């Protein structure tokens, strides 16, 4: 008797009064095909966010002479991080660190037991996602590892060497992304233990990438021509396609973070949709009032800000909370992209920090306000949050004001570590091979100089 669905089989067996397990039962004993279906889909959706989503979102915003170089960045990062994640990233993020690195260092980074995906096979499971095959969980998490460095590219658009970019992204992925992911989601991550709530990666992905982007912008300096030349986006249709695919793909990012096709995933999807729409409208209306016109770049930037801000909160909040977070993100990120940036004078070219950093912080803190036990009752979807702190009340609305402080703690740790590590990596690369392209290359466009191609 060969059976594909051992569960059902054994049920049948029980029903029939046959107590001896069938031999095929050993096969994949614990996987839920519905959960697996949703996670396979979610993986595709999150990959769609980076290629072509983010590639186009950024690609449309640069000048025509740099569009190929810009979309190439997202694509090459996708390839590079995939390989690094297989080699070491997954192990550093999602295995226990203490057995390898001792109790001190081991609290901050995973171990080396799954280097080269050692041990991942047809029957293996990651304890963080018990109802789906490990291969699915590994690939799903890979897509998060891919998009995070790709987000940073917005900060230094139009001026980084491609070789330097590959070195930077490779090192950053291993030295920054994997450890921070481990802190928040890893089996013995210290922010996880501290009770930080981060449903789908507001801290790990967005704040992390945002602050790294800010450091890049500061270290690399401004684009030539900023303030004197017209650096207007060359094709906002591309950016709108990108923003739309980010939105659609984000269902995989947020609702996928339930790691199951259940009601928590549903609530996360609903919250995502609501916050995004609210943020898009908020940015649009504020801009309309402040500048006289609602722009395409405005509404899509607002939508992305909403997606960012709802990320940590998505599986924890009610629709009303999602609406509030969306409005706050739309207004807050409008302010950061149009005012804060000019106030301090850094050239965060496509607002990697302005949208992902600031939006991520707004979302992380408001998660501490709006997270409700009712949405994520006994077992939080993301096992990372499955801690004592969480099992009790969640955020301010549940009467747990302290959660806001916990959230700030998570934000601060990420900001500090990511900023310092990014700075060090950049400086090392700058010394070794230089970060920035020649002045003539910047003037004539990266497409031709770096890649030998143009869009006529």
């Amino acid at each position, binding site marked *: 008797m060969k059976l594909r669905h051992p569960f059902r089989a054994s049920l049948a067996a029980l029903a029939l009064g046959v107590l001896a397990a069938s031999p095929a039962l050993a096969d994949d004993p614990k996987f839920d095909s519905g959960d697996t279906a949703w996670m396979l889909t979610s993986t595709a959706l999150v990959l769609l966010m980076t290629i072509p989503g983010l590639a186009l979102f950024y690609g449309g915003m640069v000048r025509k002479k740099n569009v190929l170089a810009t979309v190439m960045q997202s694509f090459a990062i996708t390839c590079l991080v995939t390989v690094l994640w297989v080699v070491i990233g997954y192990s550093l993020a999602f295995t226990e660190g203490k057995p390898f690195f001792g109790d001190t260092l081991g609290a901050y980074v995973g171990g080396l037991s799954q280097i080269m995906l050692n041990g991942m096979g047809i029957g293996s499971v990651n304890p963080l996602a018990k109802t789906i095959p490990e291969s699915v969980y590994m690939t799903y998490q890979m897509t998060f590892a891919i998009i995070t460095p790709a987000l940073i590219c917005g900060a230094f658009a139009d001026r980084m060497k491609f070789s330097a970019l590959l070195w930077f992204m490779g090192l950053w992925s291993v030295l920054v992304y994997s450890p921070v992911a481990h802190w928040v989601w890893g089996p013995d991550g210290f922010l996880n233990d501290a009770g930080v709530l981060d449903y789908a990666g507001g801290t790990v992905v967005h704040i992390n990438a945002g602050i790294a982007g800010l450091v890049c912008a500061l270290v690399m300096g401004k684009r030539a021509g900023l303030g004197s030349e*017209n650096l207007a*986006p060359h094709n906002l249709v591309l950016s709108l396609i990108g923003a739309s695919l980010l939105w659609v793909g984000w269902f995989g990012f947020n609702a996928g973070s339930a790691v199951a096709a259940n009601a928590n995933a549903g609530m996360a999807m609903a919250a995502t949709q609501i916050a995004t729409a609210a943020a898009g409208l908020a940015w649009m209306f504020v801009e309309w009032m402040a*500048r006289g016109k609602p*722009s395409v770049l405005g509404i899509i930037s607002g939508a992305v800000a909403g997606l960012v801000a709802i990320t940590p909160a998505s599986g924890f909040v009610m629709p009303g909370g999602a609406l509030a977070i969306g409005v706050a993100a739309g207004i807050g990120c409008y302010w950061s992209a*149009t005012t804060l940036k000019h106030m301090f004078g850094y050239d965060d070219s496509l607002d990697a920090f302005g949208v992902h950093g600031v939006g991520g912080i707004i979302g992380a803190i408001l998660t501490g306000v709006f997270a409700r036990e009712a949405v994520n009752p006994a077992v939080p979807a993301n096992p990372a949050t499955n801690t004592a702190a969480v099992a009790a009340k969640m955020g301010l609305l549940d009467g747990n004001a302290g959660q806001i402080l916990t959230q700030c703690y998570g934000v601060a740790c990420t900001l500090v570590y990511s900023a310092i590590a990014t700075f060090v990596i950049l400086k090392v690369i700058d010394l070794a091979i230089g970060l920035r392209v020649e002045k003539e290359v910047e003037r004539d466009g990266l497409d031709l100089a770096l890649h030998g191609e143009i869009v006529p």
Partner: protein
Amino acid sequence: MKIVMAIIKPFKLDEVRDALTAIGVHGLTVTEVKGFGRQKGHTEIYRGAEYAVNFLPKLKIEVAVSSDQTDKVVDAIASAAKTGQIGDGKIFVFGIDRAVRIRTGETDAVAL
């Protein structure tokens, strides 16, 4: 022979073409250009950065005509292209020594 070269507002092309056809001019060449002049450009705003766009889209029309037709052609263009608003454009006239129709090798007036 002369070339009448006019810078006009893009949406006036069809009217100008019709006016020229009406007076028997059956050939012209059009180029997309950007004009800088008295007409003020517009401002585009992208995430708080304002860009003053001073170069406005215009069309350049070139018509080769025999010298005696020049006035008629200039007048036809001038009245068809006119809106009376700033930025309507200019007409310049300059002489040419020769004209050749490539297909036949015919030259001068008959080549136009």
